[in-house]
């Protein structure tokens, strides 16, 4: 757990959950060949919600959030993002991807572009923004993640934590309505985890709708309004963080929590 996080006061004034539905997943199934990875997933995410998804590795949590922006294809059921249903229609997929940002475990920055170019690429080529405006926005977000001075460096010259913050800034430059985080701190050294989580907390404070796959239970406790526990491709338990940690319902959740909280 990240104890450092506890010294940060969280400003909940803007963390409002509206009635508007941001993501709706209904009876979603997915198979990899014969292997049934996601079984009957039902999830409704409202605007402004901060959801943490946890579970043992191989439980399908990454696959689930990757279905939301169609990096993985689901085979049964419905996924509706911002009122648009995900189908094979490429136009709709692109429309959804413009509104949904994503951060990856391995950052996936573009190594041949500078930090600034990484951030302006999508606004220029997808949003057709003039280069100057895109750079202005990029600098704004790089300041927000506290690395404006690295704008002209290449990703390979940055530390892991810095790279992940750039990756977050890169997503934010598209002004997404929803952010997906796929284990954003798992590939980082402990001292760098905090700087990334800090940025994520700031985002949450600003009212961003977030789904985070993470093992940072400290983050879940502080920021999430809902914690989802997955195992074997199913959602086993869904609860507010307080109850989730103090009073888990299922045995599998208890076992998982005991394993990760013991250290």
């Amino acid at each position, binding site marked *: 757990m990240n104890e450092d996080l506890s010294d940060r006061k969280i400003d909940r004034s803007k963390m409002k959950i509206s009635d508007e539905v941001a993501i709706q997943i209904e009876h979603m199934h997915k198979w990899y060949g014969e292997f049934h990875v996601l079984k009957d997933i039902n999830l409704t995410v409202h605007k402004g919600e901060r959801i943490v998804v946890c579970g043992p590795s191989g439980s399908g949590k990454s696959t689930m959030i990757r279905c939301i922006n169609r*990096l993985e294809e689901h085979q049964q059921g419905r996924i509706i993002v911002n009122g648009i249903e995900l189908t094979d229609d*490429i136009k709709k997929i692109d429309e959804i991807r413009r509104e949904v*940002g994503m951060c990856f475990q391995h950052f996936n920055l573009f190594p*041949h572009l500078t930090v600034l170019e990484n951030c302006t690429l999508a606004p220029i080529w997808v949003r057709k923004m003039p280069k100057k405006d895109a750079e202005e926005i990029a600098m704004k977000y790089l300041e927000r993640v506290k690395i404006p001075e690295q704008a002209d460096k290449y990703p390979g010259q940055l530390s892991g934590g810095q790279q992940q913050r750039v990756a977050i800034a890169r997503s934010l430059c598209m002004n997404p309505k929803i952010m997906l985080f796929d284990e954003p701190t798992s590939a980082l050294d402990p001292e760098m985890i905090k700087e990334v989580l800090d940025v994520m907390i700031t985002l949450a404070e600003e009212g961003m709708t977030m789904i985070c796959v993470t093992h940072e239970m400290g983050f879940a406790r502080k920021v999430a309004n809902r914690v989802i526990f997955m195992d074997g491709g199913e959602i086993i338990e869904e609860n507010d963080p307080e109850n989730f940690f103090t009073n888990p319902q299922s045995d599998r959740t208890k076992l998982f929590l005991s394993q990760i909280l013991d250290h």
Partner: protein
Amino acid sequence: MTDITAQEPRQYTPGEHPDLPPPSTAIGVIAWMREHLFSSWFNTILTVLILYFVYDVVSGVFQWAVLDATFTGSSAKDCTGGGACWPFVTNRFGQFMYGFYPEELRWRVNLGYAIAVIAMIPLFIERVRRKGWILAFLLVVYPFIAFYLFYGGSFFGLLPKGSGLEIVETARWGGLMVTLVIAVTGIVASFPLGILLALGRRSKLPAIKTFCIVFIELWRGVPLISVLFMASVMLPLFLPPGITFDKLLRALIGVSLFSSAYMAEVVRGGLQAIPKGQTEAAQALGLSYWKTMRLVILPQALKLVIPGIVSTFIGLFKDTTLVLIIGLFDLLGIVQVGLTDANWLGESVPVTGYVFAAFSFWIFCFSMSRYSMHLERKLHTGHKR
């Protein structure tokens, strides 16, 4: 010099240790030589042997090319020194460069070269902006200009008949000119074709994928000689009577398609080396397939395979010599034609001619190789990830 090892190393308290200069035995010419040339008795022997060998070769070449060589003359009879017979090259230099292109019209070829070179210069200057336009000019507009200058005629029927430059049939082109025309066309055509084929081979759409695999494997499976034979002997049999295709054009198409198959495999190697996360990140940002490829994947993949791409180009450049068998005279071909001249029947003439041809090829291929090294260094952006 005092013995360093005998000195007591100075003690510093942690945190105050300054950056010390490296010991004198680790830097400088002497240190380099000691480490790389004379590190053991075996290496010392090797160094001496190789130095002797280099001296032997260099002095031999110098003897042949300069000391014993003949520099002026008008036929093989003048070459009596036993060394190189340079008059063979100087007397026929025009032919080696332009083939049977009419002498009074060779300025057109030179002008064509000059336009290309002048347009290319800004590409190599770092500060110049809008290189894309220059490149577009070179790739889209220039081929037409070059064609008109080299071939002449009515510029695809746009100019009134009778006006325009005098037509020079491609059969009269030759020498370095043909080598360059084939190589440059092949390079320029095979690069984009190869990229498309490589992308197609990785496509999820079965029809495109199958087509690309069949195309690549077919062209890679046959030798270039048979491709050229097919183009010049077989193809006319399949065409309706009366329709003729320029021989050089057929060779150009054959060479381009042939090398695009090789290019495709080189590029595919680069594409495979790019982690899947790059595509995913680009897609997650909303970039379409083509934009993902153009802006994210290909710049990285092509950079990785620059050595392979340039190897293919160099191979292509040298393969142009094979057009000899379909009756086109490239640089090597025209040198060989010169050797059959009764005026130039002498012992030292063939060697001189071949050395000249080899050296000319070497200059071009070596320049390409150097340029690729320069590109690699320039595009290096630190460690991946």
